[in-house]
């Protein structure tokens, strides 16, 4: 276990190696929040609330949504897909295989290391700024644990998706396109940019069958109190189900990839 925390700590330090990098990212997050908030304010323009397939959604809800979505993106995003893609392309994956350590677990803890550093240097400043301009109400105490569990699960789901796609690099060297695809699909179907409230029925139905909404949309709705306790638990249950499925898929892809590597060479 100490080993994996060392992975976490090293990645934490790596992420803070370049000072200006840290500050620019911090600034970027705050800017992004203002832009999105301004966008929704303009869209609502004098309208108090909009009728959606999930009830009345007011501008205030939307601002809260944007703040939460930005916070979540800090905590769930990862570079895993590029880290793995690079390892495969450069052949460093071979060095990795000569170590008595599981790549998947090591990568998970590295992603956690990055996120821990973001938590301190991006989330905290963001929350401070948001508290001044767009104050966010804390949810009822009994909702908070559910939200945190859903958030952590969302992180794991996002990690597993990136990890598995990264492994596709064994067959398809130019991982950039896949990464782009994953980012865009997640942006649309997770509700990271536009809440699923505003989706036409067909897209809402489709997203029900996909794991992406469980990364952003579902945790946010739990936080905002748009789902009751039972629905919240159902969401968490679905998350665990998806984690199970994705772990199996990742295992399968990993074994196929490794057997290709050891037969064909890097």
């Amino acid at each position: 276990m100490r080993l994996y925390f060392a992975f976490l700590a090293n990645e934490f330090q790596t992420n803070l190696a370049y000072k200006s990098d840290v500050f620019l990212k911090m600034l970027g997050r705050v800017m992004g929040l203002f832009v999105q908030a301004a966008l929704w304010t303009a869209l609502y323009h004098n309208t108090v609330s909009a009728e959606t397939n999930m009830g009345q959604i007011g501008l205030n809800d939307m601002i809260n949504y944007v703040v939460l979505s930005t916070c979540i993106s800090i905590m769930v995003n990862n570079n895993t897909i590029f880290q793995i893609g690079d390892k495969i392309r450069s052949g460093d994956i071979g060095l990795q295989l000569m170590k008595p350590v599981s790549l998947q677990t090591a990568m998970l803890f590295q992603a956690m290391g990055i996120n821990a550093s973001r938590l301190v240097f991006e989330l905290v400043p963001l929350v401070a700024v948001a508290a001044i301009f767009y104050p966010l109400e804390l949810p009822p105490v009994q909702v908070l644990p559910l939200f945190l569990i859903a958030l952590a699960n969302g992180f794991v789901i996002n990690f597993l998706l990136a990890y598995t796609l990264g492994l596709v690099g064994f067959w398809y060297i130019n991982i950039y396109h896949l990464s782009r695809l994953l980012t865009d699909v997640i942006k649309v179907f997770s509700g990271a940019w536009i809440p699923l409230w505003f989706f036409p029925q067909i897209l809402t139905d489709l997203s029900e069958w996909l794991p992406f909404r469980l990364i952003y949309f579902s945790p946010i709705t739990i936080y905002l109190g748009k789902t009751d306790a039972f629905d919240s638990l159902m969401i968490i249950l679905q998350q665990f189900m998806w984690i199970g499925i994705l772990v199996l898929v990742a295992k399968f892809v990993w074994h196929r990839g490794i057997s290709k590597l050891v037969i064909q060479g890097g």
Partner: protein
Amino acid sequence: MSTLIKVDHLRKVFKRQVRSEGFAGTIKDLFYRRYTDKIAVNDISFTIDRGEIVGYIGPNGAGKSTTIKMLSGILVPTEGIGEVGGLVPQKTRKQYSRRIGVVFGQRTQLWWDIPVSESFKLLKYMYRVPDQEYKRSLELFSDVLRIDEFISAPVRQLSLGQRMRADLCAALLHNPDILYLDEPTIGLDVVVKENIRDFIRQVNQERKTTVILTTHDMSDIEKLCSRVIVIDHGKIMYDGALGELKNIYGTGETMVIEAAEPVRRDGLSLPGIADLACDGKTVTIKYDKTVVNSTAILKTLMNKITITDFVVHPSDIEQIIRKMYENPLPAAEAAASSWGGKIG
């Protein structure tokens, strides 16, 4: 001494895509791919004893790295077995990985942006190195390689020589039975090279670490290895003592002479030399030292021209291998006599 590594009729065949030429060919390849077999390692056998330092040499693309990769468990042989300490590397990769250390001259296993010491700490946990042993290792590394001078600097700020030394330490922290070194001195200056060789020798003697070394640098081999295996086109060309190899094939030398005045080719006649070239004041002479020695050549030349400087280069690996092709018979004989017919 006991046998540690046993390689038995090892063979590795890669499939390589054949690419057609031109635009039309590229389009065609998208839909219909043709493959050819490339034999990287072709039926090689050898054994290595515990505590040996073996030089594994050959030109680029000879199959050196492929062999090392099969022995380190990241490539599966097409045929044959490589067995290390009773384990088949590919089948027991995690267990096996605790017993080997690997250094690739062209890659690093250290974390790029953080201090070297942090990478070491991670490796300490990874291999579950006890505190005391870890401390003792670090002391040894500091004594010989002076890593204490840069252990708190991030890897990206290190010079190539420092990085190489740090990588070598990283591979040895868990005290492996076997150390695979793939061109460990590539691109380093003479002082660092010497330093690294001393260190490898010391580790080999103190810890009885078996070392397999691939290199293009003949002096690496001369300073470290008692035994060499020469491979080319996937076949073992020679397996035996280094002295023997040099006696049979390394007898060619090149002498470069600087004269006081420009030299004309036709004014010189030297018996027994293989080749002579003049370029202004520089004369390059190739000869076989079993036929004529350097002093005899110099003596003859001094009667004709004024020599201001001269250098004698012994033959390098490429030359030795070229000679093997010209005259392959003695190699087999030499190997058979000195190693009891271990050639496969």
